[in-house]
């Protein structure tokens, strides 16, 4: 089944970025163009996803007319649909918010084009069905994000971009080595063909070596336990709208790679590797959140929370049952929406108070009850309290953990959830409730619709918490599609 529509989520941002460079003088037109292009992209993704749901098959495109094991196949299943859709949704939200955040004259000429190149890289990594093409997608998104990060950060913060650049370049190099190992071992890089051939090698220790290398690569992109050093250094230096998009999407690309490789490609009998992921998940959950208590800036605290929640997603991945993966996927959807909205609210506080240091903001309840309410909702949602969206995946993970008898994991999940709640309460008490400290900077007037844009995101995640059935069913179906290796192979290989 050939449908050229699959390529549009990738090619539309690329064309848009070229147009954005060409019409660099028409500042307002650039903004309209970028939003229009994102809506068009959303439309193609919705069309593709409805096709996938209706026919219950993958959408496959053999690029250049070359058949599957030889050429590059682009595959679009329900998981790709969910991830690309959320990526475009968050891009629309953060761009609209960013238009209010940065004055139009001060926006750098290459900010929007680089943002669109980054989106193209992210979408390609969600859609591709080939390991080398996944590497290319990672390179596109990393190079664009390096550029964006060094453009957007202030000059006295530029040094914090180095850990990001250096560690991710190391990751790319190891990824390339991994691809070489894979090609030597399996003789192919197409996901479906890799699946067929790796099933013949299930007891071969070389397959485990390959798996460990893949965990290293995706763990570096996704900020797993020993490799998360770069994340809390580099994300807080970005301006908040861009930072929100980075925090929500870029680490999830690594996690998506793990789900795709271990779910769809490699055989499910590699229990040792799943245990390795579980072992790494515990320190990721606990160490990330413990570091959050030593920080004063809201964005720093959110970044350490982010690491801890990557650990939660890893736990679902490591348990590797259908239910735990469903819970992981739901958690990922919930987390992308919530962490982005928390960043956006932090940005509004920076605009209002001139800083997001919780010692300095003081008594926000009185000056802006709306912002405080939004932050309260999202903070409670992040820690997984009942009426909000974090509750459902957390309870699913706890149930799966208990039924598998891994009590240490359940304990550390509950501990990390409790510590998240404590760190959110810490922000709320110190920053929102306490009386204002004397050394406060003068408030800056901000554009009112920005609150509305952040509010839309909060409403969406609130809706996800109050009525989770459709998304739960969607993530369940997506997990089933990911785990059904036989169907994937028969649909991709002609």
């Amino acid at each position: 089944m050939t449908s050229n529509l699959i390529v549009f989520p990738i090619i539309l941002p690329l064309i848009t970025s070229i147009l954005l460079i060409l019409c660099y003088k028409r500042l307002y037109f650039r903004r309209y163009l970028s939003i229009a292009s994102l809506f068009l992209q959303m439309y193609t993704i919705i069309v593709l996803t409805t096709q996938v749901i209706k026919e219950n098959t993958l959408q496959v495109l053999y690029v250049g007319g070359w058949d599957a094991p030889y050429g590059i196949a682009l595959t679009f299943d329900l998981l790709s649909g969910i991830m690309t859709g959320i990526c475009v949704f968050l891009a629309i939200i953060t761009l609209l918010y960013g238009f209010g955040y940065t004055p139009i004259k001060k926006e750098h000429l290459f900010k929007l084009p680089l943002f669109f190149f980054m989106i193209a890289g992210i979408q390609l990594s969600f859609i591709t069905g080939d390991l080398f093409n996944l590497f290319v997608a990672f390179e596109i998104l990393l190079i664009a994000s390096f550029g964006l990060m060094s453009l957007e950060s202030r000059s006295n913060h530029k040094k914090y971009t180095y850990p990001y650049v250096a560690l991710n370049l190391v990751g790319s190099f190891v990824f390339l080595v991994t691809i070489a190992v894979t090609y030597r071992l399996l003789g192919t890089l197409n996901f479906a063909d890799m699946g067929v051939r790796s099933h013949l090698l299930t007891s071969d220790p070389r397959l485990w070596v390959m798996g460990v290398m893949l965990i290293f690569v995706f763990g570096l992109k996704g900020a797993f336990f020993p490799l998360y050093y770069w994340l809390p250094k580099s994300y807080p230096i970005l301006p908040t709208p861009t930072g929100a998009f980075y925090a929500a999407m870029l680490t999830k690309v690594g996690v998506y790679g793990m789900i795709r490789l271990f779910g769809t490609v490699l055989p499910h009998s590699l229990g040792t590797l799943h245990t390795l992921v579980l072992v790494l998940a515990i320190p990721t959950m606990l160490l990330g959140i413990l570091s959050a208590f030593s920080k004063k800036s809201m964005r720093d605290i959110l970044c350490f929370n982010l690491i801890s929640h990557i650990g939660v997603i890893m736990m679902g991945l490591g348990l590797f049952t259908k239910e735990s993966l469903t819970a992981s996927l739901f958690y990922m959807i919930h987390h992308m929406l919530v962490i982005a909205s928390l960043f956006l609210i932090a940005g509004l506080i920076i605009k209002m108070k001139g800083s997001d240091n919780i010692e300095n903001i003081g008594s926000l309840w009185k000056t802006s009850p709306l912002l405080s309410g939004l932050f309260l909702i999202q903070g409670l949602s992040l820690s997984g309290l009942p009426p909000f969206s974090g509750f459902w995946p957390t309870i699913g993970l706890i149930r799966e953990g208990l039924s598998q008898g891994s009590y240490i994991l359940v304990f550390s999940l509950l501990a990390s959830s409790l510590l998240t709640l404590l760190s959110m309460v810490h922000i709320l008490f110190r920053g929102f409730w306490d009386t204002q400290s004397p050394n406060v900077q003068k408030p800056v007037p901000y554009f009112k619709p920005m609150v509305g844009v952040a509010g839309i995101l909060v409403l969406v995640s609130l809706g996800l918490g109050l009525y989770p059935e459709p998304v739960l069913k969607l993530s369940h179906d997506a997990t089933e599609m990911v785990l059904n290796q036989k169907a994937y192979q028969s649909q991709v290989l002609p």
Partner: protein
Amino acid sequence: MFHSIILYIVGRFLFVFINLAALYLLIRGHNAPGGGFIAGVTTALSFVFLTIISKSGDIKKLLIVDPIYVMITGLSIVYFLCLYPTFGFKAVLTHSQFTPLLFDVGIYMVVVGVIGSVMSAMIHNTEQLP
């Protein structure tokens, strides 16, 4: 920046031959090692060479257009050739008789543009160093 008249005279001749080699690589790339990327790197390096040996030391003075426009033109060619088969209901990037060469030319322009603009920025910066 040092300036040697011998190097300058020889270098101007070399510039022509380096670009002829690049052209050879570009055309040969259809079915043998070579192609748009390698040819683009060769051409871009010839411009960098010429900048270093010439007195002015500014790559933008040697080029008629800003390298960034070369890059954009190349990218536009590549995107057009990528999407062109969809009008005939074929898969994206399906090639016919002459389109691979055109595609290579697009890549060549992208590489020349990117390396040209990066190098002009770098040469410009290092000149101000003591």
